[in-house]
């Protein structure tokens, strides 16, 4: 029996595993991941990780930037804990070997980032997530007692009497479905960007963990807050990191005009100014794009309208030194050179502010079940996450969840309840039927990809940068219908070995559950705040909605949304001011 079982081998999961291995070596700890850990999506993060180290910086200022960036929907006690522990975690990573970029005197270097008033973003060139994840992964290799289930897909949580007892998982390699009993479970499964058609997120970001918790009875929180990143490459959705703007890049419309000055984001200066213009927060920049599009000042391409990101004035040498990956990506995937050409960009779905509702230790409402990372919502991101806050978040709360799970496992030593095996058996039968095609006529049923595309376009139409009540209400019905049809989708592949088609179907079902909560929460919140902009309710309404949305799964499978108060400690709601 495993003491602490961690679902997910990304930054949050590995940090949790190390925390357990180092502080509680007597416990058995395992990491289950549907891809090899170093393939996890954390690897794609580019720009950096925020943590206060500068002498002219302070914890309070980082808190304030985060809270105002999140349009006052952050829980301020969580933000304070986060900001306090972030520098420690980043130094810890340095001690484990992370190749942070450096100042000439050997100290770690920091760069500016969107919505941050000070230089506090640590970076490893523009492959921060890559270096962070590989450092964590390699550090876990020191602890041979961390067991790894590589390429196992968790299909459900075993919950009995309000308490988690393990998971059921499918070994891709052999096709076997196994119950893995555990005393405590940490969900660290990352985000769900793939519910949208155009996203920076990797193929594996299908919101599995959110769906697992939600189906098991734990509520999700603030699901309506979906972050668009203002600069993705058209077609692929590959991210051009915010660091490109932090280093001095400009956003230009079809007339070569720095249009952000028209949207209350300050006045253009030749060099970047913190919390101003191109360094405003992501929600505001993405919204400005839509207005430019409405005014006909964007550029049309086969993949939709774009604006231009101009890095040419930085020169090849600076680009190569600070943001080499941007140049590499543009050259390999867009066939242009940012040193001499304009980069076409458009807003792209990037990050999920919402997730499984947890407290400061990652605890969910189910005993023994914890969540951390993008899949969780501790509420430090509020209505809009600031760039470079997510990497430190997965470290701080990954560690906290790991420690809390270890403590739980230590104090709950009883054996495995019979429910574990029987649920494992049920799940096995269910999945085998799906694979044999005996639950569905394999010739009947619809294609998984068709259903997925329908879902994605429904979400983009109804829950994009700007939303209306009508569209959302319609989407509620469309998604309910898609959910039903996904129950009978066609699986042609009957092989037990590495059956990726079956996984695709399971992922689609997870995404549909998550999509329904996004739409339900968005419909419920009749105001505009941060990344949630309702055309029919354009103002922020603190009287009614200075509160988190909490969504439960009703017995009939529909989402039911309630509200929960926001924790305010030092920073009462105010106006979000940028560029002044």
């Amino acid at each position, binding site marked *: 029996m495993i003491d602490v079982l961690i679902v997910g081998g990304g930054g949050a999961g590995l940090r949790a595993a190390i925390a357990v291995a180092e502080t509680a070596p007597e416990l058995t700890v395992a990491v289950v991941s549907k*891809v*090899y850990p*170093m*393939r*996890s*999506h954390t*690897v*794609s993060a580019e720009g950096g990780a925020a943590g206060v180290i500068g002498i002219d910086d302070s914890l309070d200022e980082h808190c304030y930037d985060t809270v105002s960036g999140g349009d006052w929907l952050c829980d301020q006690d969580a933000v304070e804990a986060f900001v306090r522990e972030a520098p*420690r975690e980043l*130094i*810890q990573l*340095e*001690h*484990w*070997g992370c*190749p*942070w*970029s*450096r*100042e*000439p*005197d*050997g*100290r*770690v270097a920091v760069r500016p980032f969107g919505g941050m008033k000070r230089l506090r973003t640590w970076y490893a060139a523009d*492959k921060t997530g*890559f270096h962070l994840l*590989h450092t964590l992964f*390699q*550090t876990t*290799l*020191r602890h041979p007692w961390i067991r790894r289930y*590589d390429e196992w897909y968790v299909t459900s949580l075993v919950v009995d009497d309000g308490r988690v007892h393990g998971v059921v998982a499918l070994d891709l*390699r052999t096709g076997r479905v196994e119950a893995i009993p555990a005393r405590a479970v940490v969900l660290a499964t990352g985000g769900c960007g793939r519910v949208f058609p155009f996203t920076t997120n*990797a*193929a*594996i970001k299908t919101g599995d963990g959110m769906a697992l918790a939600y189906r098991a009875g734990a509520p999700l929180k603030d699901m309506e807050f979906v972050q668009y990143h203002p600069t993705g490459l058209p*077609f*692929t959705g*590959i*991210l051009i990191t915010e660091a490109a703007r932090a280093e001095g890049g400009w956003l230009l419309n079809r007339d070569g005009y720095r249009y952000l000055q028209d949207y209350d984001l300050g006045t253009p200066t030749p060099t970047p100014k913190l919390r101003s213009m191109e360094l405003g927060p992501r929600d505001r920049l993405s919204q400005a794009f839509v207005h430019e599009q409405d005014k006909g000042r964007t550029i049309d391409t086969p993949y939709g309208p774009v604006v231009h990101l101009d890095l040419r004035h930085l020169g090849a040498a600076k680009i190569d030194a600070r943001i080499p990956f941007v140049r*590499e*990506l543009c050259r*390999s*995937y867009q066939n242009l050179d940012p040193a001499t050409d304009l980069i076409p960009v458009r807003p792209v779905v990037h990050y999920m502010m919402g997730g499984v509702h947890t407290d400061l230790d990652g605890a969910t409402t189910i005993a023994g079940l914890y969540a951390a990372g993008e899949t969780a919502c501790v509420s430090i991101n509020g209505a809009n996450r600031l760039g470079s806050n997510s990497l430190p978040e997965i470290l701080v709360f990954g560690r906290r969840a790991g420690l809390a799970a270890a403590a739980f496992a230590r104090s709950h030593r009883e054996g495995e309840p019979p429910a574990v095996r029987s649920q494992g058996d049920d799940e096995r039968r269910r999945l085998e039927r799906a694979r044999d095609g005996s639950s569905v006529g394999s010739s009947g049923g619809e*294609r*998984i*990809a068709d259903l997925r595309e329908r879902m994605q376009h429904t979400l983009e139409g109804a829950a994009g940068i700007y939303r209306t009540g009508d569209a959302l209400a319609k989407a509620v019905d469309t998604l309910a219908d898609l959910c039903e049809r996904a129950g009978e989708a*066609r*699986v*042609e*592949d009957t*092989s*037990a*070995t*590495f*059956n*990726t*088609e079956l996984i*695709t179907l399971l992922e689609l079902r997870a995404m549909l559950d998550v999509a329904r909560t996004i739409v339900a929460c968005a419909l419920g919140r009749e105001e505009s705040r941060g990344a949630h902009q309702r055309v029919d309710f354009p103002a922020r309404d603190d009287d009614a909605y200075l509160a988190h949305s909490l969504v439960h799964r009703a017995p009939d499978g529909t989402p039911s949304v309630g509200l929960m108060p926001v924790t305010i400690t030092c920073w009462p709601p105010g106006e979000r001011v940028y560029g002044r």
Partner: protein
Amino acid sequence: MAAETIRLDVARYRPEEDAEPVLQSYEVPLRPDWAVLDGLAHIKDHLDGTLSFRWSCRMGICGSCGMDVDGEPRLTCGTFLAEYGAGPVRIEPLKGFPVIRDLVVDIDGFLAKLSSVRPWLVREGEEPPLTAEYAQTPAQLDAYKQYSMCINCMLCYSACPVYVLDPDFLGPAAIALAQRYNLDSRDMDDRFDVLNLEEAVWGCTFVGDCTRVCPKHVDPAEAIQRYKVTAALRSVLPWSGR
């Protein structure tokens, strides 16, 4: 549908029914900005759901999508169909690894090799408190930076004839990873016991194809040759620790 198409000849291996891989042909649209991976995704989504392959980031950083494309190990997310003119394009699993299914190969052996070189900072003495970082100048960072860029895509293994003939060979990426730590000013180990072996650096005959195919310019061939010098000097001059 688009008028222009290209034929992909894809290796299929279903262990339950096939004794060895067979090529299966598919016609997919030929679009100027489609990578080989987009072609495969098109097959899986619209033509044949039973095709299995790994991918995730489709931006050349997660290292999952390495395959043999027309005889060369490539990252399929960064290889464009248009490179192959009128086609057809032959897509096979990475050579040198056991094939689990279709385009999916077994990488557990590779992971065991990575772990065997102690790929973490080895320090002596007590851990310093978490209040300050170890100092490292940009020049010191530069000394190992390139070797830290490896995405574990295994193209170099597939390209290395020594590895393909002898699966016990520690191989390019694992040795480069060892050097990444050896050359890090914060590390205190030289990993001599695991690198100074027949199956480690001395197995390499400097073919150099590992470096040629590496999509991240890690230059593992260089890493290995440099360690040969280190190991030889250490053997001749016992006091030259590192």
